């Protein structure tokens, strides 16, 4: 059997889920030896040519147009799409801004921050525009496996990934669920 190809992406989130995955320590070696990690914040290798993937993993909510497009591409090229963490599953802490108009959020963040002197809202054609609201991934594309938690523990992340690699659909035991 060919080595399964896996990619992970980091959308609107703190990267805590990736950090939690790194918490697997030596078990990480055994998992990574069974897969081919194509592009990921961990490898910092960006391959937007998009090979056909077996597993795509998304950390973070859909917060800007780049996230939106990448999510569509991932869906198209992945056999199984996984949402990691509360931000990808529910929108997470980023949804705090969903109750505030976008213009106000940008002004507060880039201009009115206490430590900012003559701040400017970044505006360049290469910068992806922010969406009005950050959305959970499953409101943009279909998601096959949800792993909530802020962050999910390393064990839970490993359990879900290993199950997928073994051809099973992981169902997290209720006692491992947590939203905080």
């Amino acid at each position, binding site marked *: 059997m060919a080595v399964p190809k896996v990619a992970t992406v980091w959308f609107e989130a703190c990267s805590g889920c990736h950090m939690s995955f790194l918490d697997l320590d030596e078990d990480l070696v055994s998992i990574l030896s069974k897969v081919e990690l194509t592009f990921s914040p961990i490898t910092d290798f960006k391959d937007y040519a998009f090979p056909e993937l077996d597993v795509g993993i998304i950390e973070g909510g859909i917060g800007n147009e780049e996230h939106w497009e990448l999510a569509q591409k991932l869906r198209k090229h992945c056999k199984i799409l996984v*949402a990691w963490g*509360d931000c990808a*599953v*529910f*929108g*997470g*802490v980023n*949804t*705090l801004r*969903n*109750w505030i108009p976008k213009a106000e959020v940008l002004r507060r963040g880039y201009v009115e921050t206490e430590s900012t002197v003559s701040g400017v809202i970044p505006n360049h054609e290469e910068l992806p525009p922010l969406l009005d*609201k950050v959305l*959970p991934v*499953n*409101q943009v594309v279909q*998601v096959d496996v*949800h*792993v*909530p938690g*802020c962050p999910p523990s390393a064990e839970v992340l490993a359990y879900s990934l290993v199950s997928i690699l073994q051809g099973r659909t992981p*169902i*997290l035991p*209720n*006692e491992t*669920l*947590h*939203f*905080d």
Partner: protein
Amino acid sequence: MEAEHKTIKITMDEKELVVPDGITILEAAQRNDIHIPTLCHHPALSNWGGCRMCVVEVDGSPKLAASCVMPVREGMEVVTTNGRIVESRRTVLEFLFAERNHNCMFCPQSGDCELQKLAYELGMDHLTVSFSFNSFPTDVTSDYMITDHNRCILCGRCVRACAEIAGTQVLNFHNRGPRNLVGFDLNASREESTCFGCGACLQVCPTGAITNRYRTHYAVKGHSKDLKATESLCPECGLLCPTTSQVHDNTVIKIEGKLLGDGDRPDRGQLCYKGRFEVLKGDGKRLVRPMVREKNGTWKEEKWETALALVAEKLKSIRRAKGGEALFGLASSALSNEELLLFRDLMAKGCSAGHVGSLDGEHFKAVSKAWELKGEPLKEASWKMIPEADFIFLLGANPYKTQPILSTLVRRSILERGIPVALAGDMECMPPFATFQFPVKDEKLPLLIKAFRSEVAAAGKKVPPKSKGSSKSKEGAVDVSGLLKEAGLAKGAKKSFMEMVAAFVHSTHPLILVGEAVTGLKSPSAFQDAMKLALSKGLDSGNVLRLMVLKPYGNSAGAWKLGLSSNGNSKGKDSWKGGLLYLGHPKDLDSSVSADLGNLDFLGVISPYFPETLADCAHVVIPKPLSMESSGSYTSLDGWEIGFVEKILDPAEGVKDSWETLNSLADQIGFRHKFKTWEDLSKNAVKAIKSWRPAEQ
């Protein structure tokens, strides 16, 4: 009653059960350890059937039934869990999560939330519906609670608690459909509303919609599983409400009432703003080291031994120079019976002090004289008699200020039993509820009582009070209209007044609640009139008066019964000269007392906080633990019971308790009291209070 004894047979999850007829399916399941998830249901509240979390399948019917409201029936077959039941519950749960902001990672209730627990229990790992992102207001106006409608699931527990437990009906559903929310009064903020801040809604709220203003921050409170619970009583006002305090890292995180009932208490486990919130407020920086005021007026930290030796030395030298009469002991009536007794003995016997009293002792003077009107000691009415009263007269009393739970009991009596309630004096405590209202200034209250008494005597052909001689013949001739006018009431008040008299005359179990405004009057005649008014309706069994005194402090009854009556300043401003030792919290000192403490040769203070108001006149300040940091017995408001309050926290670093401090002073003064241990002291205090008779005063 019969229905309760009759049993029927039902089948639940293929188990044959024998259950009492008339109970709900949920109750039947709970009695047989079968778990059905619930959300809007709360065992202390009426059933609602609103959330559909407890749905079950009955007799294979395609429509699921809410088990919390459906009664059992002979031969009923119930299935509590199967695929479609779980699917239905999870769908409801998803709708609840999607409707408002239920993102756990920025909610103060996370880890202690029933909605969250259900999501875990039902394996809700994502939502299949989209979020609404509707915005609702957040009410941060109250000093005690934050109400975030974005976290609300409209289960209605708070609405029911407000009506059924607190008896206020402040909370209710406002608006319709997706804009539906729980509002206060007619769309007021919590602060502007008639909310009494009891926190019953907070305690029953399953989510983070109503949260405590104190200690709810995630960083402070820790996870609910790390909390240590201590069962105790609240010593704040004399009602000794049972509490459960949750402690984390020597900090009280929350204090909850026993909503599921506790013995014969009629309060249904409600707590009040004092016991639930005020005690969590910090009063500034704690005093942990003794302080001594130097000659130039600055305060300096001192060693315990040195400071205590200084206090003892001052007391001794004043006694040597001017005699014991120049020494005074003053205690706050918020202290435990043990502290009060130990302090009394130290000052009275050890120092032969001229006077040992309590801050609110003045109130007792009026009361003690009246106590023996019938020639034998009368027992004050118990607050537990309120639910049986058929007429309540609040006379110069503001239970909201002194004993907040009493105001609940009175309000519930109006709402649930429709009894007439008359209010004279301060109108603040229950404006929309009382049948008769007489907004009379404190000093005019005697006129109103006089008019009331004489009209009752005239109206009732029933026996007028057997007053000892004097005004009996004149009573018929009292000019009621004149008295009411003089009391400052409008002309129309006469009609309402006469209706009140009639209601009182017709009542069989009236109760008169007398407050500080009357007991604090210079002349005791108003209180005595109130006593006679109560006596005119006869005594309740066991020589119990139909009158009770709403006392100002948590252990006033104990302080009074231990003989700490007047504050010793009866001769006016200049009588406090020589030396005075104050034991108690600085917040208990009102300005009239602290203003009179300026002319002393020596003023010692033993207190948990530095007494800012006495910074210019005190000489030595010794730290003491807070009531939460020591155990002790407290006497109930009516004096009928004694409750033991547990130590909930360890004292602030290095602070010696009153037993150690007062014993050290006694040793240095050369006084040996008879109590060998704290337990021995406690026994003696309880004995002294229980054997108290008015004649001793």
